[in-house]
């Protein structure tokens, strides 16, 4: 699995070993309540060579790319880019997180068009 970790590191441009697991990213994340795994735990799984588990969590999809974690990280790690890299690895396998057919019709009417477009880009292959 070392190759997959290297790929995520390359895609994101981040040194995963720089993280010292302080948890400041998780503490400040505005979406953390919806996540099944803390952002720092996602990094941890990559550090210990378990990227397949990191690819399965919902954290990477819930991440809004708000960059709160990135601006506060004491080690200068851009977590948003790591989350994006993990999404990319999934999407390249055609594993859509959002199933377009499952969107309810009433939601389509309520949601702004731009939100739908953004979601297609972020969560579908």
């Amino acid at each position, binding site marked *: 699995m070392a190759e997959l970790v290297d790929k995520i590191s390359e895609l994101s441009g981040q040194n995963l070993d720089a993280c010292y697991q302080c*948890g*400041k990213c998780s*503490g400040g*994340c505005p979406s953390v309540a919806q996540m099944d795994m*803390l952002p*720092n*735990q996602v990094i941890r799984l990559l550090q210990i060579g378990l990227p397949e588990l990191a690819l399965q969590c919902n954290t990477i999809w819930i991440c809004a790319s708000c960059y709160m974690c990135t601006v506060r990280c004491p080690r200068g790690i851009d977590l948003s880019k790591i989350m994006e890299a993990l999404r990319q690895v999934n999407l390249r396998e055609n594993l859509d997180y959002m199933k377009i057919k499952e969107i309810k019709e009433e939601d389509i009417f309520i949601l702004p068009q731009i939100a739908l477009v953004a979601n297609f880009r972020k969560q579908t292959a």
Partner: protein
Amino acid sequence: MKQRIGVFVCHCGINIASTVQIERVVEAIKEYPGVVHAEDYEYMCSDPGQGMIRARIKEKNLTGVVVAACSPTLHELTFRNVTALSGLNPYRCEMANIREHCSWIHKDVDKATKKAIKIIKTIVEKVKLNEELTPLSVPITKRALVIGGGIAGIQSALDIANAGYQVILVEKSSSIGGHMAQLSETFPTLDCSQCILTPKMVEVAQHKNIKLYNYAEIDDVSGYVGNFKVKIRLKASYVDWSKCVGCGLCIEKCPTKVASEFEQGLAPRKAIYVPFPQAVPNKPVIDREHCRYFKTGKCRVCEKVCDLDAIKFDEEDDFVEEEVGAIVVATGYEVYGVQNIGEYGAGRYKDVVDGLQFERLLSASGPTNGEIRRPSDGQIPRRVAFVSCVGSRDPELHKPYCSKVCCMYLAKHAMLYKHRVPDGQPIIFYIDIRSDGKGYEEFVQRAQEEDHVTYIRGKVSKIYEDNGELVLLSADTLAGMPIELRCDLVVLGMAICPSSGVDELTKKLKIQTDANGFLTEAHPKLRPVESLTPGIFIAGCAHAPKDIPDTVAQASAASSKVLEMFGQKELSHDPMVAWVDEDLCSGCGVCISLCPYDARELEIKEGKRIATVKEILCEGCGSCIAGCPAGACQQRNLDDKQVIRMVETVLSRG
């Protein structure tokens, strides 16, 4: 004279021998003109290795020695001493660096071997032209200057003074004591900081060998090791301390209140003030910036109430000059400002305090007389959060280093808080607990087991105020859960940084600082209390964050280096200095502007301007030699002839 040079090639275990073929080197160098002997040994610096060189010098009647081994910074002295012991002038011995400059940096064995041979031949050429030199002797003024009157400076001054030498102690504030005087109790033994410090402060004040200049700063430093001249600015205090008896009436009547530095802004002081009751010396100063008379031209209440006529509004800064042989720099630290941490409120929240402020809240002589009351409303906080690594270990936004003392003092804070508020809840947010001093880990365990301090592993991400409480957003990285904690008071374990003004001082002293502004030691392991400038030593937090035991140990170490110097009759100075061919010198003075050591000066000799060399100041850097347009400057044992011969040798075939 026919040269008879011996070459000794070291294997340095496998350090050299694994990359350089020693046998080939010895064979090649044996044949080189001027070389009468060449041999190798596994460790030339060992006793047998040194013995071999001594024996060969005598047997072979050598006139010069080349040791092909490591860098001369490591063993030049060793081998020059060996040479001297055999009756040969030590400056007829040189090292050829075939380790750092060759074996360590190359992989190709053949090329490295050829390069090693070249390096050795070059040094043989140099030795052929080396003169016999004698070290210069330098007299020592056996008095020391200590800069900074915190615990490091106090300890250092006392050690030197107790050994019988005079010490000049300069402190920028009106009292000695430094930050240690502000602390409540000290880890890991919980002894009262003031109780252990004030006897030492008094000892300084009463010591016959210590001359204390408080409220003073270093204005200028000139000279060199053993012979420094220091100009000290005595800042105007506007109080004649020879008349003042410290009755305190002026302070009582002064109408102006400003935030007390000693109380970290948690209590007011007057514009004429003594920083704290146990101050040494216990004499007031007028804070010109805030004094009503200096600001508006009206008031002079202190002058009116002083029966002894001790107030002198017309006083100006004064200067004194002192001659010293050694200097200890102990300028201490300051706390990195809370205003730098935006996500923790940047200083907007009254109930988010730094560690030193909490020390004052804990202190029996502090603004709350030792009762823990939060600054905003004076209430006793029921839940207190302590946050470590604030600004420390943060290379991205703040300071990259660990501030070393925070883990321990936050454990102490939490413990003391629990002792004062038994039903209170102390919670420490940490990333790693660093408790590596004697009795430190036991202390942290005591905080956890006996005082039930809750440790949460996670860095606080955000602090905000809500309805009179503080809300901390963090995560418990061990439980894997986000945390939102409401509490009444937050104590930040802020990073510690070098004192402001140190930058300017280091320029005057010509000593170096690292990327974070801390003083640089001459060697991180083997010369930890010396600066790179001879005669200037460093102690305490000016060097790096450290706790009181380490500071005191380093201060005593610096003193012992001073005493080592003072124990000698005179100092010796390297004779490989610049010299001037007076026939060639046109007196243009380029060398004077280039010399970083003030070692060059113009003199009139027989009606002609000549740039001479003050040999004792010359460090042999070569700047003047490179810059001299007439080629009149030369360096002993590295003159143009030698350098050209060496370059020719490097460039020659074979």
